[in-house]
């Protein structure tokens, strides 16, 4: 599945370019503006540095959260039926799809990180940390794409999936530490942030990329458990789509 995704990206690169536009705007407009007005206290770290890992996680979230649409499209096109008649286990199909989404996120992550570096964000040069970034982005995207496929299995139609996807994207994004420290949030939003895997993804990325204090083992643990739970849920519901 991963290989297929790479083959497709090799054939058609326009999607990569267009997808890079939105996070670029976030970094350039939102990032530059809020750096200037210094509205968000981020300690010694410049706001743009603080923001860059958040935008990286956000772009991965946006790619992943609508991934279920592809499953529904494949259902309509008969592809899913063909896949489900092969002896490949459901969980393997879902895992393949989840990591295919991860590959897409990574391609975009490269664009975002290059832009960040150009804007003067002090990124790490340690190759081991870069490897960690790859793992975290893959896991985060795997979880959110499985969430999307799970919703697809419940919603059964593209329109409903779009609606639900849009309804949960913003709470996930704003209810995380992607844009501002959790400490600034009202109590109820902090509670959301603590159960939101995106917060753990951002925490890990920030720790790895710009060296802010983080909780890497906890973050990694949460993301691994979340991804496994997501794969289990999505594979249990996959068969429903072709009934």
């Amino acid at each position, binding site marked *: 599945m991963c290989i297929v995704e790479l083959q497709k990206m090799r054939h058609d690169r326009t999607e990569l370019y267009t997808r890079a536009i939105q996070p670029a705007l976030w970094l350039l407009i939102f990032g530059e503006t809020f750096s200037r007005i210094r509205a968000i206290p981020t300690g010694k770290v410049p706001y743009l540095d603080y923001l860059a890992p958040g935008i990286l996680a956000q772009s991965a979230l946006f790619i992943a959260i609508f991934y279920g649409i592809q499953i529904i499209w494949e259902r309509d*096109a*008969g592809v899913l039926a*063909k896949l489900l008649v*092969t002896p490949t286990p459901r969980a393997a199909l879902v895992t393949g799809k989840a990591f295919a989404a991860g590959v897409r996120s990574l391609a975009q992550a490269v664009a975002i990180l290059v832009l960040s570096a150009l804007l003067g964000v002090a990124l790490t040069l340690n190759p081991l940390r870069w490897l960690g970034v790859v793992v975290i982005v893959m896991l985060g995207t795997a979880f959110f794409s499985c969430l999307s496929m799970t919703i697809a299995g419940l919603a059964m139609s593209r329109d409903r999936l779009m609606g639900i996807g849009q309804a949960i994207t913003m709470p996930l994004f704003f209810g995380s530490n992607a844009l501002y420290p959790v400490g600034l949030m009202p109590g109820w939003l902090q509670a959301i942030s603590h159960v939101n895997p995106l917060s753990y993804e951002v925490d890990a990325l920030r720790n790895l990329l710009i060296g802010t204090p983080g909780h890497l083992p906890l973050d990694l643990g949460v993301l691994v458990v979340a991804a496994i739970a997501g794969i289990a849920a999505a594979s249990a519901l996959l068969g429903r789509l072709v009934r």
Partner: protein
Amino acid sequence: MNGESGPADRHAIVCRGLRHAFGDKVAVDGVDLDVAEGEIFGLLGPNGAGKTTTIRLITTLLPARPGMVEVFGLDVARHRMAVRRAIGYLPQQLSADAALTGRENVGLFARLFDVPRRQRGERVEEVLAAVGLADAAERRAQTYSGGMIRRLELAQALVSAPRLLILDEPTIGLDPVARDGVWERIQEVRRATGMTVLVTTHYMDEADQHCGRIALMHRGRVQALGTPSELKSGLEPGATLEEVFRAYTGDRLDEPGDGFRDARRTRRTAGRLG
């Protein structure tokens, strides 16, 4: 079903009292079928007759109850993985990935069917040649004609060397030349390998020409079963299969009710074929 039906192990498919309902709409209502190994068996019937549901039960896409379906003597309800291994399946819709090349499309299914890595490349080239796409294998599927896409999908279904090939409306929306092309390839592979073919179709002439035996389905049941000539002579001398079809299903080819979803899907397939 073991024991009492000895010949069953020479059957590719045995259905007994096959039944499936979507909510309170009964799509398949007590179908009994025996498909012998090596034959081409046609499932005919108007839209909504239950053909596709029958196929989806046999291919494990819908849950069948134990005792309802056996594929090569394996109960589909109990041995889903083994059954999937034996089956090549071509759905009604156009399902090749337009963004990938012909070879990539087939290679994907070779991997999904765990064709051993060392044989994979060879196997992919073999089936591409068998469906006459060896020269177009490097091109992306979106540049293919409708008939070529259908043959590519045939290659995908054949790459695992299935003992049973299941085709849902394999020639829908194709022009007569492309239809012949698809059938020729199916016949060639069957002659070479002895695989069994289960096919649904709306085209009476195709069923007449290519199917060894035919089951006419209507309202979820098998209404008539036999070789094309048996069915025709059973009605009146000189009757066409089309007339037999009308005699068993009434004049209208379309059933009211669930017809819309079916027709929409069919039209979409036809539309994409252009």
